[in-house]
C-alpha cells in the first residue's frame, strides 16, 4: 500500500535503527538500576533521591541521555509493532495503522523534549 509516509521511511528507519542500537545500550543500565536495583533495595534509595536525580538530570549530558532514553525506544517500539502487525496478517490495514503508530511516537518525542527541558 503506497502511503505518503514512504517518503519519510529513511528517517523512520534511522530512528528505529538507533532505537535498537543506542536504545538497547542506554536502556540496559536504566532498567538495571531504576527499574530493578532501587525498587528491590539492591541499590540504596538515596542514589535516586530527588536532589540527586535533579542534579544528574539537569546536566546537559543528563538531559541528552534522557531524551535518547525516551525517543529512541519509542521509535524502535512503534516500528517493530508495525512489523508485527503486518506479520500477523494486517498488511491491508497498514495504511491506517502505520500513521497512527508513528503519530504516537512523534507526540511522545515532542513531549520528551518538553520534559527534559522543563526539569
Amino acid at each position, binding site marked *: 500500500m*503506497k502511503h505518503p509516509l514512504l517518503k519519510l521511511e*529513511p528517517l523512520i528507519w534511522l530512528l528505529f535503527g538507533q532505537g535498537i542500537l543506542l536504545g538497547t545500550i542506554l536502556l540496559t543500565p536504566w532498567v538495571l538500576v531504576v527499574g530493578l536495583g532501587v525498587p528491590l533495595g539492591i541499590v540504596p534509595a538515596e542514589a535516586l533521591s530527588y536532589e540527586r536525580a535533579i542534579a544528574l538530570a539537569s546536566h546537559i549530558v543528563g538531559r541528552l541521555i534522557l531524551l535518547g532514553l525516551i525517543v529512541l525506544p519509542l521509535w524502535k517500539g512503534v516500528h517493530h509493532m508495525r512489523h508485527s502487525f503486518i506479520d500477523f496478517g494486517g498488511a491491508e490495514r497498514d495504511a491506517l495503522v502505520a500513521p497512527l503508530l508513528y503519530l504516537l511516537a512523534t507526540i511522545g518525542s515532542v513531549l520528551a523534549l518538553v520534559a527534559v527541558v522543563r526539569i
Partner: protein
Amino acid sequence: MSDGQQKKTFVITRFDPDRDDAPRKQAYEIPVHPDWKVLDALNFIKDEIDATLSHRWSCRMAVCGSCGMMVDGEPRLTCKEALDQYGDTVDVAPLANFPVVRDLVIEADGFMEKLTSVKPWIIRAKELAVEEGPMRQSPGELEEFKQFSMCINCMLCYSACPVVANEPEFIGPAAIALGHRYSLDSRDEGAAERNEVFRGEGTVFSCSFANECSEVCPKHVDPAAAVNQAKLNAAIDWATSLVLSRGGSK
C-alpha cells in the same frame, strides 16, 4: 545398492488448475537409493509412477536455480538436498509465498519483474567503447561485491521472508542484493538511480531483518546483509539529497 530396498513415502502437494479447486496432497511410496537427492525421487515418481507430476529442474548441480521447493517445510534446492537426511516420510510442496501454477511449479513472473526493477546492469554516465579495453578492477574491489553476485535466482529467500509474504510490493532479498551488487561494483555509476528505486514503492525499509533469507540461501549470498546495507546507503542518499536540495535550490 538397491538390494536393501529402503523405502520412503513422499507426500507431494498437487494442484491442477484444470481439475482441482485447491491444492491437495498425494502420497507415493517408492524405493530410494542411498545416494539420491530429493530431486531424484521426484524424477523417479514422474518416470515410473505418475507422469502427471509437474516440477521444474534442469542442471541437477545446484546452479540453474529452477528446482526450489519446500521440503519438510523448508525452502530447499531439491537437487542439492541428500535424501538420507530426511525421515521415512518427506513432505514436498511448492515454494511458499508464491502463487502456484501447478503441482510444484510456482509463478515466477512476479520475481522477474522485481529483478528487472532494480536496474541490474552497469550504469555509466558515458558508455565505454570496446576499443578502450577491459576496465581495471583490483581484487579488493572485486571482493566488495563478489558475494552478492553469486545469486542463482532460486527464490528460496523469497519463500522464507515474512515481509515478502505480507507486503506484495516489497522488492525482496535477491533482487535488492542484485541491485546492491551493481551499486558496489567499482565499474558502475548508477548507485543514485538504484537508491531511488530502493526508496520507492517496494522500499528496502520494509525489510524487518528477519535474516531468514540468508538462513535458507543455498549459495551463501547473504541477501540480508545486502538488503540492510542497501538501507543505509539509501538513507544516506536521502539525507544528502535533502541537504543538497535545500542548499542548492535556486
